[in-house]
């Protein structure tokens, strides 16, 4: 009993510390270049925490997340630049559009499973990417959309200031993590995890497969689109090359590396994906080879991802820490 209270408390403390750290980050004296990398990581977290719902919780690996990321980015930019809406007014509409896209892609895809499902989502990703490239009048094609303005000021906070924009994205990220956390620990989340573990069993105990799988897919898509809504004004420029299948693959990898199906996994994975290239710049030419090697080795030897290793290490440490206490009391007993 005491132990459980302690771990909940320490978890809460860790979360608070992290939030404080991320709030203080712009003022810690690092070059603005790193603020950029952290901001990109935050956008990634929104996208991958969302993807985690269909991939990690429900067990269906979707290769279409980059498309929803892109649809969010394009829709938001077009509403602002072509229709003159404000960023804030367009946000809910964009999310609805992304949800509809999620239904269109999800409905045929979810009727298949496993590898079929993944390849179906890949096919949709390719089709959507090509549409972004070809529908010139709408998307600008390869030229893309540029001069995307930052969100309009609210409460007098001006978002042309990069630090302010960072805080805005940070808040959205924290809200995202909180929502995903609540989903995981709810009936809905547990239903999804049951589907992942054993689909037939889930159906047998009355879980509606269609409803929960579709819900998972659409929610994942919406978070992908949400991330895109902030990516566009942050980068000021978008074009189709960012929204292809390899981007989807990177998102999937980020989740796997961090720990699929956990809350912390996508967070770790997002930072790794954005910061690792910095570390590996030293061996530029063989960078990707090392990266691939790491991937293979991690998957073979650490299938639970980094988080899994951390769990094993901490379990090991816990054992070592608690053991001596017991032997002490034992000797005490025998002496007495």
């Amino acid at each position, binding site marked *: 009993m005491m132990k459980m209270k302690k771990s909940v408390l320490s978890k809460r403390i860790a979360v608070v510390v992290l939030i404080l750290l991320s709030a203080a980050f712009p003022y810690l004296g690092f070059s603005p270049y790193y603020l950029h990398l952290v901001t990109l990581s935050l956008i990634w977290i929104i996208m991958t925490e969302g993807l985690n719902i269909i991939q990690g919780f429900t067990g269906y690996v979707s290769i279409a997340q980059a498309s929803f990321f892109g649809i969010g980015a394009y829709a938001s930019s077009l509403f602002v630049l072509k229709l003159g809406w404000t960023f804030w007014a367009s946000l809910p509409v964009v999310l609805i559009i992304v949800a509809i896209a999620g239904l269109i892609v999800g409905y045929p895809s979810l009727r298949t499973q496993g590898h079929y499902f*993944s390849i179906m989502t890949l*096919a949709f990703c390719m089709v959507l990417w*090509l549409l972004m490239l070809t529908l010139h009048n709408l998307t600008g094609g390869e030229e893309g959309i540029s001069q995307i303005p930052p969100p309009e000021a609210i409460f007098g906070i001006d978002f042309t200031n990069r630090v302010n924009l960072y805080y805005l994205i940070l808040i959205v990220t924290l809200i995202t993590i909180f929502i995903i956390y609540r989903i995981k620990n709810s009936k809905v989340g547990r239903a999804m995890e049951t589907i992942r573990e054993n689909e037939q069993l889930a159906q047998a105990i009355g879980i509606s497969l269609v409803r929960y799988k579709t819900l998972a897919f659409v929610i994942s898509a919406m978070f992908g689109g949400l991330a895109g809504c902030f990516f566009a004004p942050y980068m000021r420029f978008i074009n189709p090359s960012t929204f292809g299948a390899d981007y989807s693959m990177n998102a999937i990898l980020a989740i796997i590396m961090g720990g699929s199906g956990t809350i912390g996994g996508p967070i770790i994975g997002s930072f790794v994906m954005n910061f690792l290239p910095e570390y590996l710049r030293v061996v530029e030419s063989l960078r990707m*080879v090392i990266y691939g090697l790491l991937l*293979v080795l991690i998957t073979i030897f650490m299938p639970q991802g980094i988080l899994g290793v951390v769990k094993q290490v901490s379990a090991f440490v816990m054992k070592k820490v608690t053991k001596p206490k017991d032997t002490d009391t034992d000797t005490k007993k025998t002496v007495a």
Partner: protein
Amino acid sequence: MFGELTQQILNGLVMGSYYILIAVGLSIVFGVLSIPHFAHGSVVMVGGYVTFIFVNKLGVPFILAMLISMILCAAFGILLERSAYRPVRNAPPINAFIVALGLVMIIDNLMTSIFGANQVIIKSPFKSTYTIGSAHVTSLRLFMIGACVVLVAALIIFMKYTKLGKAVRATSQNREASLIVGINTNVVTAIVFGLGSAFGAVAGSLIGALFAVYPTMGTFITQKGFAVLILGGLGSIPGAIVGGLIIGLTENLGSMFISSEYKDVFAFLIMIIILIFKPSGLFGGKGK
């Protein structure tokens, strides 16, 4: 219009043969071993480079070089299975997927470091052009169709009439039962990966002569290959054949009748449409 139609159908048959060669390799690996070999495209690429070295650098005749490439790639494929896929055989399927992605990164980037990022073109001995009506076709493109027909026929004969082939089919139907009956599944696994990679080597060599080989070509090949596979039904060789032909023809006829702007997506659109009506693919029965 009729003249163009003949030409486009011919175009479709040539590319269809290429897709079949790739999809068959993927199909036997997936059908027998249930492994989605996402690194297959990289094997195809390596096969192309091996033939390139033997033909362009060492002056070996094309067909002989292709045969050498088939043998070397078969060994390469078996090595990949042993070192990377086997350790994750009993893990959740997504692990094999990730391992494959890692292999792709390693292989593609090593090849880039060795050969550079630029394309290489294999010198082919096929130099003539024929006309069929008003349609033109080079001898190399006819050879592509011919090679596909010959090799697929050989594979079907192997699977149906030889002892090893029957062992392979037995393993694909029921792995445990095959073990009990005394079939050495490790040998079967090696044969399957070897055959699949050999087919990949042929595809890589032919495409390297017709177009070019370059280190990053693998990803798109794998994607198209799986589209063909899923369309035809995972694990079915007739499915791979029909799927390859459908996609080859659709791309060219779609480009003719609709627009060449969308040529790249016809394959994926057809796949989506067919899967909406038959989620296990045209000839697929397994469903997963």
